[in-house]
Each structure stands twice: as C-alpha cells, then as structure tokens.
C-alpha cells in the first residue's frame, strides 16, 4: 500500500499527510486517487483542511485543493495552517492588538466594591468608589480607583507587563500586575497624608509610588 498520501480526520476537518519524498506531479495523482476512493465517505461534508508532512507553496496548495474539489463533493471551508512559526506570529499579532485595546479603551464603574464582590473587565477600568477589603478587581488593562483601594487589584490580567494600578488611597491587600504579585506589608505603615499613588511593574518588582509628572511621563499604554 502506498503511504505517500494519508488522510486523517474528525467531524470537523481532515489532515492530509503528504510524503516529502515523492515528486509533486506524482503526488497530485496520488491525492486524486486517494480522494476519489474515499469521495463517498466525505460526501457533502463541510470541512476544514490542513496539510502535514510537506512544505507546500501557495500554488501547490491551490492545485491540491482543486484536485480535491474535482474528485469529491466535499466543501473545504478553510485551510488551517499548522506551521508553528506562522501560528506564533498570528498569536502575537492578535494578542498585541487585544492588549492595546484593553489598555487604550476603558470603562467606568460607579459604586463601592464591598467584601465578597469580584469584578473583571476586558478593558481598562476606572472605579468611582472604594474597593474594600475582601473585594477584587481584575482587568486586562489598567485599573484606576477614584477612592480607596483596600482589596485586591489585578491589572494586565492577560500578561501585559505595562499595566498599572492607580488609587487615591493606595492600601491594597494584594496587587498583581501580569504575573507578579505584591502584598501589603505585615505591619501597616501609618501615613500622615493620603495621596494618589501608582503601582507599576519594573523587572521583577512591583513599585508603588506617589503620582507625579515624571512617573506619568513613563507610562506606556
């Protein structure tokens, strides 16, 4: 039996494994044969397809798709790339775009988050009110609390290390930015004046500093 062309599949799609050692013209014959043999099996199915085992140029890929279309009644809905490099680029671009979106867009929430409350946002969020002990806010972007932050805040939840947390009264139980966690000191520091502060990630550490012009200049969205 000739194993130069193999079809693997499930309900939603098939993987065509092509031998890299056979000349392309011969391969086309084999593909035609293989699909003709199994055309009954595919019938009117709507499938996704991907190729494995051989690097195909766009022209070659198109030729093979044409052959499949000629020999079966199957509809190819899309061609899946399983080239890891391409996939990585795709993933990066999409995530980058989403991250920018979560940083640059935001929504307002008015109200006090009391103990036990937990809110999560796809975008940045501005909370008009306090976040009390035992409450938590999670955002893929930034978190700004126009009030006291006493509970937990998790900014950059999808891994954005540029995310930051701002609060008028910054006394959180825990702050997480991307994958770093900072917790409150065991001995609370008595502050004379409450001032607005920002928490941001630099290297392996989360820093909390008073808001001032130079820090604001360093913010990257």
């Amino acid at each position: 039996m000739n194993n130069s062309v193999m079809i693997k599949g499930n309900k939603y799609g098939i993987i065509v494994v092509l031998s890299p050692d056979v000349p392309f013209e011969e391969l086309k014959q084999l593909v035609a044969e293989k699909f003709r043999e199994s055309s009954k099996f595919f019938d009117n199915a709507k499938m996704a397809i991907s190729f494995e085992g051989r690097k195909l140029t766009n022209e070659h890929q198109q030729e093979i798709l044409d052959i499949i279309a000629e020999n079966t009644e199957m509809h190819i809905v899309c061609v899946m790339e399983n080239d890891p490099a391409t996939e990585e680029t795709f993933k990066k671009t999409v995530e980058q775009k989403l991250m920018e979106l979560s940083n640059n867009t935001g929504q307002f929430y008015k109200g006090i988050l009391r103990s036990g409350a937990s809110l999560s946002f796809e975008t940045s969020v501005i909370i008009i009110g306090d976040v009390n002990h035992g409450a938590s806010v999670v955002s893929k972007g930034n978190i700004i609390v126009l009030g006291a932050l006493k509970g937990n805040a998790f900014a950059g939840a999808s891994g954005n290390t540029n995310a930051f947390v701002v609060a008028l009264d910054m006394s959180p139980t825990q702050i997480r930015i991307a994958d770093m966690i900072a917790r409150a000191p065991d001995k609370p520091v008595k502050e004379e004046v409450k001032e607005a502060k920002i928490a941001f990630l630099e290297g392996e550490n989360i820093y909390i500093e008073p808001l001032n012009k130079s820090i604001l200049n360093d913010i990257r969205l």
Partner: protein
Amino acid sequence: MGEVIVVTSGKGGVGKTTTTANVGTGLAMLDKKVVLIDTDIGLRNLDVVMGLENRIVYNLVDVIEGTCRIRNALIKDKRYPNLYLLPSAQTRDKTSVTPEQMKKLADELRDEFDYILMDCPAGIEQGFKNAIAGADRALVVTTPEVSAVRDADRIIGLLEANEMTQTHLIVNRIRMDMVRRGDMMSSEDVCEILAVDLIGVVPDDENIVISTNQGEPLVGSESLAGRAYMNICKRIVGEEVPFMDLEEKAGFFEKLFGKRKRS
C-alpha cells in the same frame, strides 16, 4: 402600613439581639405598635433578653406551618402592652422556613403593627436570607473591630444585591477612652469604610450585660447606652436627634472615683 426592619450584622456577638430588644422596646415607649420576630431558628435568644422565655407556647415555625394563628403565637410584653414578640423555634433549624414564607408573614403583620423588627441570625446563609426577605430597612450592627467591620461590609454588599433601599449603621460597644488613645476605630472611621448612614453609636456599657441577663431592656434609662438606644428609636421614627457626646462629665467622675477605689 407598618415598616419591616431587619437587624443584622454578619458577625456573631456584636449585639444584634440586644439592639433588637432595646430598639423594639424604645419604639414601643414612643407609642408605636411593635412586634419583634426572632428569626434565629434553633438558637433563640431574643425571648431571654426580653425576659419572656417562660411565656412561649407557639413559635415562628408553628405560625409558618399553620399549626397556630399568628395571634396565638404573639407574646405580649410584660411592660408595654403595644409590644409583642414572635419567638423562634428552638428544636428546628433555618431550613424550616423559606424567604417567601417570611415575606408573607411580615406583610400580614404590616396592617396591625407600626414596626416589625426582625432579629437576624449571624452568617449569610438561609437564616439571613429569611430575615431580610420582607424588610424595607436594615439596621447593620457592628462593633469597632476590624473583623466585625469586614463582615458588616459583606452584609451591606449582600443587602444592596437584594435591593435593600435603606441601610443604616449602628456602631455598638464603642469605648471612647480607647478611641482617644488610637487603639480603637472611631465611629467616623467605621462610617468612612462602610459608606452608609450612621443611625446610632452605642457605648460599651456594663449595664447592658446586667440588663440582658435580667431580661429588662435598658432603653430610655439614664445610662449612656440607654440614652443612645432611645436616640436610635427617635431617629427611626423620623426625629432629628443630634449625636450625643459619649464622654460626659458624669462618666469622667465615675472613672476618677473608680480608679481611686481600685488603688
């Protein structure tokens, strides 16, 4: 049309039952017709604090289950004829009634009474849900302790989620000497954290322990706590009462005297 008020706290032991007894009695002293309902099924206390334990024949669960009529289960107070108690069942548990049944019961009592006070059990489970079901207003009791304030915060959140429109705060057992030394939160601190309206501050007063043990609410008496409770009652009926100074001269002399005696 009567108003249903739930007295709740989240944390146990902060003074829900004592508050219910004193506020209820105080409202009766202001010539309102009042019924107190103990919703802490299985751990009933309100009857003891009111000194009415020996009069219990029927209870809340009997009324809900239709064993008796409301009228049969209501216990008339020994001091005020316009004050009644609906005691809780001791041999059952919280699952014996549902929030819908409690709401129905409260609504039935509205026609006859000016105020229906629900003494809520500690916790946020079934008992809490039963107690708040029919309430128009909540009195959240807390002490100036971090743990009690945390629980009060959670409770206020749950009340908001249940669309309670009026939530008022009572800061109980405050000790002004400790507040002055910075060892205890002031009522202002508590209010700032919880962000709800304060309706009363009750000082820590040993007379309360005596009164609850004797089953005689001390509201209206000359003690600081007694006056603080009466002020709460007046605020509930809509009077504007200024918050009293909890550090009075009398207290100061007593302290001096007390110290001299000890030394």
